[in-house]
């Protein structure tokens, strides 16, 4: 026979009709009633005679009074009317039949009223008084427990004290369904199982499902002979009777064999259901047959519910704490990422924190051909191959594996550094990854017997016989990625892409700025078509006129035409020069240094002087601070402003030009004030535009580019320009440069 047949085993177990065994445990008897106002017994367990002397067949289609006597039947009938029966058995009363007292449990299921009679202990009042304070005690003690293990240990101890079972285990199921023993309470002579693992195959799938519905189960004596039901099927439906919730439900012979193999004759298990899932079990064993009253079982069930609730709360609190920590780490990373302009450089600066974020041993950033690693990672080639594989095979935004070689066999080469992988795609378009590696975590599982150790005897399913410790060593795995870690990684990715998006917005801002520059350029070409064309047309026009008048004797007129031609030609030349300088202004890089403003101003005045031999100009230069600026650019701006002041004070005698500075919040302002013709404030908004003029050409020469240049220079320094004037009294042109911290 093949020995390794776990799969067959489980499949067979899963076909076990555990809900419909067609029999009960023989320590009590079952009566099923049907038929509304005058209920009759429609199904009984075969051990009826043993307790009542009545043969099963004789009880069928009879009223309850014929079986348990008129008094008992009347009491029960009243109780059945008063209590709304549910799917879970409820205690109705304790009835005496002959010499024996029975606890009567009732539940409604499978279209029947099912009554179960269990021999009762005497003195119920005293039992209840003893039991219920235990629940209060447990509640008090459990609040002091500071871990799930401590909670479970407390529950194990209290349940053992309550029930007198020799061994109480509390175990939880892992993702694969294996049970890990978290806590136990033992009487002398019972083997310890704490820290061990029970294979998933010990509890078949349909048993787990039943354990969620029916939270407490007891087997009083594993050597029992089941008492069959008469009739065998549900008399109403004709199908196998569903005993899912019956306290006396007979269990699978495989399970009884399992118990005997384990040296356990009595057992009880209480389900620990957390968030609707079977989180674990409280499993009680006793070497001898053991009876528990319904009340004892109910208290155990309540303790189990309290424990499950605390496990949930503790788990939630632990998870919350863990997520908080990870999130704090994430916030620190994101903080670092917004520092500089270069995203990848920013990522590099937070590498240690990235490692911490995912509790990883190594981290890699893969962006196009650029690969940055930190900590303990596979080689560059291995990482590149891995990211190629991810690109081709993984479509989730965040991929994680605690056992990479299982999905990606080449990872066997580097299990020491990367048995675990958390991969995050950090671009929506490109295959750019953030990779976290977790090293191999070699660990041992102490199985309570070989997990695949169930043995097959010819034709019969038998449970495993060995509960000897069996140690398994696991290679190629890392510590698993927690659900919280993966979820936070997804959150982190969203934030990362958010930053990328913000950067895209910055790019959009830049584009807008470029758009503005482009508009300036359009204004520029527009101006060229207007302003550069005009002088050319004038040259042509006056030349034609000059030729026409060649023969005439009007030398004055000819002289003027010639002068006009010369002016137009000079203006055209100057326009071209100014336009070129203007376009340069937008392109050349700024080289800001510490500049003494006073020196710049004096330099400009010296430069202006040769053009003004006969002018009387009173230059009043106030104290000027040092600033950070590109001196060449700033001198050009200053020169434009000062020559403007000179130009528009041509009619003032003396011309007074005052240069001063002023500290404003966050910026230093400079003012160039003159006592010239000034301008109408109504048109102030046009002053700094390209080719805007507020004066007639013949009054004040100029191309209309000077102030546009000034604005461009100052704005490129992050500053602003403005002007104020009272026509006829003078104008003040100002600019402000932001402070450098």
């Amino acid at each position, binding site marked *: 026979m093949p020995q390794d047949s776990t799969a067959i085993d489980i499949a067979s177990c899963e076909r076990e009709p555990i809900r419909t065994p067609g029999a009960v445990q023989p320590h009590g008897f079952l009566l099923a009633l049907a038929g509304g106002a005058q209920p009759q017994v429609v199904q009984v367990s075969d051990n009826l005679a043993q307790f009542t002397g009545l043969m099963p067949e004789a009880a069928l289609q009879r009223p309850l009074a014929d079986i348990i006597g008129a008094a008992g039947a009347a009491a029960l009938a009243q109780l059945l009317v008063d209590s709304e029966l549910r799917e879970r058995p409820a205690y109705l009363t304790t009835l005496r039949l002959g010499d024996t007292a029975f606890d009567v449990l009732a539940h409604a299921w499978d279209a029947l009223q099912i009554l179960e009679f269990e021999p009762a202990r005497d003195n119920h009042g005293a039992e209840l008084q003893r039991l219920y304070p235990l629940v209060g005690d447990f509640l008090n003690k459990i609040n002091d427990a500071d871990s799930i293990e401590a909670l479970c240990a407390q529950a194990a101890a209290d349940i053992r004290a309550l029930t007198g079972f020799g061994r109480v285990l509390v175990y939880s199921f892992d993702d694969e369904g294996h049970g890990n023993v978290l806590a136990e309470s033992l009487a002398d002579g019972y083997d310890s199982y704490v820290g061990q693992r029970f294979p998933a195959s010990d509890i078949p799938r349909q048993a787990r499902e039943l354990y969620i519905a029916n939270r407490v189960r007891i087997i009083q004596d594993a050597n029992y002979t089941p008492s069959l039901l008469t009739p065998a099927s549900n008399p109403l439906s004709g199908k196998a009777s569903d005993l899912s919730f019956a306290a006396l439900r007979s269990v699978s012979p495989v399970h009884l064999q399992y118990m005997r193999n384990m040296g356990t004759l009595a057992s009880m298990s209480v389900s620990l259901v957390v968030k609707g899932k079977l989180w674990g079990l409280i499993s009680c064993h006793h070497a001898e047959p053991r009876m528990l009253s319904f009340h004892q079982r109910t208290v155990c069930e309540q303790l189990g519910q309290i424990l499950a609730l605390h496990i949930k709360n503790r788990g939630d609190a632990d998870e919350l704490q863990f997520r908080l920590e990870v999130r704090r780490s994430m916030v620190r990373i994101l903080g670092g990422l917004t520092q500089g302009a270069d995203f990848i450089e920013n990522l590099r600066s937070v590498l240690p924190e990235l490692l911490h974020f995912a509790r990883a041993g190594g981290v890699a950033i893969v962006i196009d051909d650029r690969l940055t690693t930190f900590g303990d990672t596979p080689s560059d080639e291995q990482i590149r191959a891995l990211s190629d594989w991810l690109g081709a095979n993984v479509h989730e935004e965040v991929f994680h594996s605690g056992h990479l070689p299982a999905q990606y066999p080449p990872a066997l080469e580097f299990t020491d550094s990367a048995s675990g992988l958390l991969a995050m795609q950090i671009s929506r378009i490109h295959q750019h990854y953030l990779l976290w590696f977790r090293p191999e975590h070699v660990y041992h599982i102490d199985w309570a017997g070989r997990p695949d150790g169930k043995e097959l005897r010819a034709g019969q399913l038998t449970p495993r016989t060995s509960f000897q410790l069996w140690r398994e060593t696991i290679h190629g795995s890392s510590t698993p990625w927690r659900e919280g870690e993966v979820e936070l990684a997804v959150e982190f990715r969203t934030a990362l892409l958010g930053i990328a998006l913000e950067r895209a917005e910055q790019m959009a801002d830049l584009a807008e700025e470029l758009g503005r520059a482009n508009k300036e350029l359009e204004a520029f070409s527009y101006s060229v078509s207007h302003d550069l*064309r005009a*002088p050319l047309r004038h040259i042509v026009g006056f030349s034609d006129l000059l030729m026409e008048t060649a023969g005439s004797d009007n030398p004055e007129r000819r002289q003027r035409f010639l002068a006009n031609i010369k002016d137009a030609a000079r203006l055209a030349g100057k326009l071209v020069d100014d336009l070129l300088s203007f376009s340069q202004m937008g392109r050349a890089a700024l080289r800001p240094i510490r500049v003494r403003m006073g020196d710049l101003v004096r330099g400009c005045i010296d430069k202006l002087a040769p053009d003004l031999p006969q002018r009387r100009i009173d230059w009043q230069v106030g104290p000027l601070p040092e600033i950070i600026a590109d001196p060449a650019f700033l001198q050009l701006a200053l020169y434009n402003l000062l020559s403007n002041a000179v130009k528009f004070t041509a009619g003032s005698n003396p011309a007074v030009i005052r240069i001063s500075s002023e500290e404003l919040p966050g910026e230093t302002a400079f003012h160039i004030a003159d006592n010239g013709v000034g301008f109408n404030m109504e048109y102030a908004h046009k002053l700094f535009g390209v080719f805007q003029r507020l004066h007639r*050409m013949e009054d004040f020469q100029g191309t209309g580019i000077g102030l546009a240049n000034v604005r461009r220079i100052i704005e490129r320094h992050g500053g602003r320009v403005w002007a104020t004037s009272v026509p006829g009294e003078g104008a003040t042109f100002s600019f402000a440069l932001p402070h450098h911290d």
Partner: protein
Amino acid sequence: MLKPILLVEDNPNDLELTLIALERSQLANEVIIVRDGAEALDYLHARGAYAKREQGNPAVVLLDLKLPKVDGLEVLAEIRASATLKSMPVVMLTSSREEQDLVRSYELGVNAYVVKPVDFAEFVRAIADLGIFWAVLNEPPPGSHRYIKPQ
């Protein structure tokens, strides 16, 4: 009664060339010269320095696009928005054939858009044609008098 032509031109060279051209067209209309958009509006609204001018709108406004203070498009917009001025013929006289200027001018309701020819002979002919068309041939809006060439 002869209605004047309003010439709005800031550039002295353009002004001289235009005046020479108008002179050669032998129009008898008075040519009123203003040097920027603000002055043009003052004249048209008969305010400021022109508060005491003779009543009535000019036969046509020859308007440069690029003007100090208030540019040609702004002047045109204000003319079209004014109840007393809106039906007055306005001709853009400009250096540029820029599409945006053309489009804007027609949007604002210009009557004609003339790019100043570079060749002077053509320039003279264009100005003469304009003057004759608008000041002589064109039937002015109701309420103004048609120009009759003196015998």
